[in-house]
Structure formats: C-alpha cells, structure tokens
C-alpha cells in the first residue's frame, strides 16, 4: 500500500524556527546567528562587542558548543546573560535546542540576542533557528579561497565579517579575493573587515549592528 506523504524532512526544525521567530518579533529583539569554522574568532568578536556596546544596548548570548562551557564563561565575564548549549556530538544548533535555551533567558527589554553556533563551516547553514540574520565569520589564517570552497554558509548569510586583519602582514591572504569569492556565491553579501584582537575597524561592525537594530525596531 502506497501512501502519499509530501512532507519536508526538516519540517519540525522549520516549525520550531517559526515559533522562535514569532517570540523574537514579539519582544522586538534582533537575533543574529553567528557561524564560522572553529577558531575564526566568534567568541572574541562577541567579547569585544559586548564590552564596547554594553552601555548602549541590552544584549544576551546563546553559546553553542560540542563540549565545555569555556566560551560561556568568557561571555559571562563581560556581565551579559549567557546560556550554554552543549550539543554533545551534533555538528550544528537546531531550532529545538535554541527553543530550550530560550526558557532560561529573559527576552524582556533585550535589544540584541547573539546565537553563537557550533564551529563548523558546513552544517549550521542548513538549520534555521528563527534568527533575523545570519552572519559568517571568515578569518585570515583560514585562507581567502574558503567562500568558494564552502559556499553554502556564505550563500545564506547577509553579512561576512573578515576577522584577524592584524595577521595580514604575516600570511598570504587577499582581501579582494576573499570578498570577490564571497560575492560571487552571494552578490548581496555585505562584507566588513575587522580585527577583534586589536579593535581595528570594529566601529564599522557596530554601525551595521546599530542600523539593523533600528530597522528591526521599526518593523
């Protein structure tokens, strides 16, 4: 007996992502899904951002890691509310994990919620979490060819942050090549180059954040 089904395999993830999105919209919180390879500097960028903008915006962080609470501890040290998700073996966050974490977070009065995804340049792209925007970090030591080699994450992102600019003098990395590669796979992708360590050009990232928050508030 043949029974037509016609359902999406990821329907559960999509349904829960929509629920998360509704909750975020009700609280008018700007939610950003931060993705990259392990070690590109997601946590470092957040530490800097949280302390530099701490008096200007109310922010919170959901930390996704396979193991350890190391990153959550680094974030907690900035005084910002943080919830750690340990995926155990999963290579990405999904919308049900985020929904569970939201139970431990007060969204009232919050301006921006960062979701730091598991370090992985492939899988997290396939799972919507209910976020407003996806951001992919690429760091100089990874090489300028990565957007073309791992396109899916760059295709689905609205912003690419090129991190570790301070290492440019020591490595063969072309900012032009990295940007061109990323915009080949996604012509609408915005690009901001920074160094989270030295603070170089972070103001451009903060401006982007302010303008996105303003847009969200108007919606």
């Amino acid at each position, binding site marked *: 007996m043949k029974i037509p089904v016609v359902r*999406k395999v990821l329907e559960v993830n999509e349904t829960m992502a929509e629920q998360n999105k509704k909750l975020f919209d009700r609280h008018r919180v700007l939610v950003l899904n931060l993705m990259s390879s392990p070690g590109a500097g997601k946590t470092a960028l957040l530490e800097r951002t949280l302390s530099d903008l701490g008096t200007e915006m109310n922010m919170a962080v959901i930390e996704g890691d396979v193991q350890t609470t190391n990153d959550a501890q680094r974030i907690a040290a900035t005084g910002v509310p943080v919830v750690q998700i340990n995926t155990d073996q999963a290579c990405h966050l999904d919308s049900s994990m985020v929904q569970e974490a939201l139970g431990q977070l007060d969204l009232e009065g919050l301006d921006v919620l960062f979701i730091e995804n598991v370090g992985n340049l492939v899988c997290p792209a396939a799972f919507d979490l209910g976020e407003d925007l996806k951001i992919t970090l690429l760091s100089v030591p990874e090489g300028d060819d990565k957007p073309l080699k791992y396109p899916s994450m760059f295709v689905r992102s609205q912003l690419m942050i090129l991190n570790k600019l301070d290492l440019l003098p020591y490595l063969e990395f072309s900012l032009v090549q990295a940007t061109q590669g990323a915009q080949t796979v996604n012509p609408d992708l915005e690009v901001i180059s920074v160094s989270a360590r030295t603070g170089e050009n972070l103001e451009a990232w903060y401006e982007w954040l302010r303008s996105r928050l303003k847009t969200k508030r108007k919606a």
Partner: protein
Amino acid sequence: MHELSLVQSLLDIVRQELRAHELTRLKAVKVTCGRLSGAVPDALHMAFTALTRDTDLDGSRLDLEMVPVKLQCGECGKSFSSPDKGSLAAFAPCPSCGQEIGHRVVSGQDLNIEYIEAE
C-alpha cells in the same frame, strides 16, 4: 555530517504516518533530495541503515531521487536547469545571456518525503 539528524526527523515523520494510517510494516520510503539540500546520498543511506536496524522499521528501504537544480537567471529572467551537480550548481552560466551569478534557485534545495509503502 548532519545526515543522522535528517534521517532521525525522517523516521519520526514515517512513524507518525504509519500510526495515522494504522499500518505496522514499512517497506519503503520515497524521498526527493535536491542537489543543493546539503544532504549527501551515501550518508543518508548509511544513517537510514543504522537508525532502522533492530527497530520496528528493520528491513525497510530508502528510495532516493535526486532533484536537479533549476534556476532563474538574475539578469534576463530565463529559467534553466543547472548542468552542475555539485554545491556550485547555483552559479552555472545562463544559456541565454551567459550571466553566472545572482540566479534565483527555483528548485533543488529541499529534502522532501514523497510517499511511504507499507502494510
């Protein structure tokens, strides 16, 4: 790498459908897999075998149909099938105007269950 999670979701849906139609033995499940869905066929088959073995679904079959990528040119608006089967399928040159980027993906991103065969 996330095919295990995908197949787990797939089997949750299959079990729901079996219960809803009061069936007990799954023979096969037909899934259409877009070339841009990010799911790798071999890994899906392996996850399916691993997650059905010694369960109520043991002995069932996963029938996969790969769905080619259909694009609409961002420049001239013509629709065409991408000849590229890899993850860069969305950047094939438009056969009408030659444009390589900015195409809209019409189909080929989804992973859908079409039907189940059961008794």
